[in-house]
């Protein structure tokens, strides 16, 4: 890297030019405190451009110095002959060699370098000496992630959405993808729950010919999501139930009817009745757990009684009331 250290008027930095930016520092106070305490140990790297100096690395440091109302800042100025590819490599290495980049940052690095590489494999090889180890398969996924709204990228970087769930959002409109990112950010579902919620909402939106963001605003879901009385866990649980009830109305009614009738059987403690999966098969399972002959006798007596119970007959006939 050919660079010359110079003191530059801070107003000459073109902070709005983000062509080489890999990180997006949310809060520069921490950096500002460090600079105030120990000085600017590692000056930003810049390159002279038509309208001033373009930042290559050190966006956080430059912003912190601006906030500290410095008038001048020491910078390492790259030779004008340094190519855009080399500038990007410097930007990546400056960040990746000091800390682990999160998924959104990796995504940005990959997207910016993509045009210089023939394929994912060569891009992966290019990144390795810069301190960024990304397998070619992941590079392919990051290309796709970069095409998604920034909210989705950030939610993925913060682990609020798994990468695979995020990539499923490619199939929906951007507003809905942002709505899902917001929903997962606030409810923090597990990976399996993310897939279940997304798949349920996606299928419902297709069936009802609407978009997911609009679907989330219907009273049935909005009531849960906007409730001030429910904590995160309860909201998540109720939302999943509401989605399932709307997606599988007949199956949900059958499950409710089964549980209501099962309760009416008033089985003894230790007894349980299980329906066949999805009520598809005809075999039900009765379980009896007991620890004494007295308990077993009570269960046996109960078993005789429920065999005559009309609700058991209704259960076995899989009767469901019409909606």
């Amino acid at each position: 890297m050919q660079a010359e250290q110079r003191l530059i008027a801070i107003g000459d930095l073109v902070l709005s030019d983000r062509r080489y930016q890999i990180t997006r520092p949310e809060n520069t106070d921490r950096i500002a405190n460090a600079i105030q305490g120990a000085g600017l140990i590692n000056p930003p790297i810049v390159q002279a451009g038509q309208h001033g100096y373009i930042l290559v690395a050190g966006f956080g440091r430059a912003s912190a110095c601006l906030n500290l109302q410095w008038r001048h800042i020491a910078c390492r100025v790259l030779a004008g002959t340094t190519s855009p590819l080399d500038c990007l490599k410097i930007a990546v290495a400056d960040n990746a060699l000091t800390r682990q980049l999160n998924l959104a940052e990796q995504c940005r690095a990959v997207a910016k370098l993509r045009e210089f590489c023939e394929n994912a494999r060569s891009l992966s090889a290019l990144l390795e000496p810069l301190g960024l180890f990304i397998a070619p398969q992941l590079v392919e996924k990051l290309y796709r992630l970069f095409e998604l709204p920034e909210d989705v990228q950030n939610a993925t970087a913060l682990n609020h959405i798994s990468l695979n769930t995020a990539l499923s959002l490619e199939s929906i409109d951007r507003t809905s993808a942002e709505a899902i990112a917001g929903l997962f950010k606030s409810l923090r579902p597990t990976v399996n729950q993310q897939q279940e919620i997304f798949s349920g909402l996606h299928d419902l939106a297709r069936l009802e010919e609407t978009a997911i963001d609009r679907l989330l605003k219907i009273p049935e879901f909005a009531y849960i999501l906007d409730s001030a009385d429910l904590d995160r866990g309860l909201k998540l649980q109720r939302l999943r139930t509401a989605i399932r009830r709307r997606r599988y109305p007949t199956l949900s009614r059958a499950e409710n009817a089964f549980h209501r009738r099962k309760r009416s059987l008033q089985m003894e403690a230790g007894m349980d009745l299980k329906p066949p999966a999805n009520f598809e098969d005809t075999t039900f399972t009765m379980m009896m757990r007991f620890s004494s002959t007295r308990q077993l006798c009570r269960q046996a007596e109960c078993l005789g009684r429920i065999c005559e119970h009309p609700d058991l007959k209704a259960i076995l006939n899989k009767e469901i009331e019409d909606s």
Partner: protein
Amino acid sequence: MKIRRIYIDADAADDPVTEQVCRRIGLPVKRVNHPVEIYQQISASPDPEAAGKSVLLLTRNKGRFIRDCPGTTHYTCCGYQILHVGAYCSMDCAYCILQAYYHPPVLQFFTNHDELNEQLQSFFDQGVVGRIGTGEFTDSLIWEPLFPLAQQLVERFSRQDTGNLELKTKTAAVDDLLAISHNRKTIMAWSLNTQTVIRHQERATAGLSARIEAAEKCQASGYPLAFHFDPMILYPGCHADYEAVVHLLFARIDPANIVWISIGSFRFMPELKEVIARRFPDSTIIYGEFIKALDGKMRYFKPLRIRMYRWLIDRIREKAPDVLIYFCMEDEEIWEKALGFTPAAHGGLARMLDERAASMCGLNGRVQTR
């Protein structure tokens, strides 16, 4: 058929059928030593399922021509036998299982008809009543413009009296079959669905009226007939639409000429969902109330199937009280609740259908309990 390229498997190059097909189509052909290169080319296409419909591979059937219907576990199969004359289909139905059954799917027509004829003769020589059809891995009539196989089979079956051939189709291309002496040993069968389903989910198939008109022509030529309401698809307004199909059918077709009507609902291997979503983005058939059934396939929640079947059966019974109705791949609970009996009470579904075929098609073979 919109075939753009013909490939000939080296093994099939000298078969007379190959020569005849190539002469009829008149497209340049490419000889291949192994079909893998065709598969690779098709797999690389953005829509392999569509690409496979534009390529014809003439090859030899290296397995058996006559095989049992694969059926599935836990559900009652009709015991139909498949005459495996070719694979895949030039029509393009959203729900078609063949899209996910072959990897990748390619139109294949088998050319070793000498072996086909030998195996058919063995089938006839057993002296056992058997139902055999070509419409499982392909449509029975799409190949006729390339090679008159259905015509030859109808003629062949007419000269024996132990088995019947069922030609199952969604086309209306029956004109070449009408004058053939069939001796009632061939059942002409149509897959029926509502106008809405045909319009939106069955690309390049004949319309409902055209299918029924074709059936009517076959009826006039003395062919026994069959109809398959499969796959029934649930959507708002579907009941009225299926009623209209029943009405149209019996306005033109005499129930006394119908050997059987089968009913089945849309079911699919889970991997087909992605294919349908990709290839038929406007289709919503995969978003119904499906559950994973006992054989791993997705099926409508059982009470929905029972309700839909009962309703259709009532409509059919109003027009044709005595016609034999059976379910394709359903369990005893469905039979009992929708039809009021189970096949076991009649010696099993295969036997029920064998006896019906024997009486309607004049078969003299032994009816076996299977």
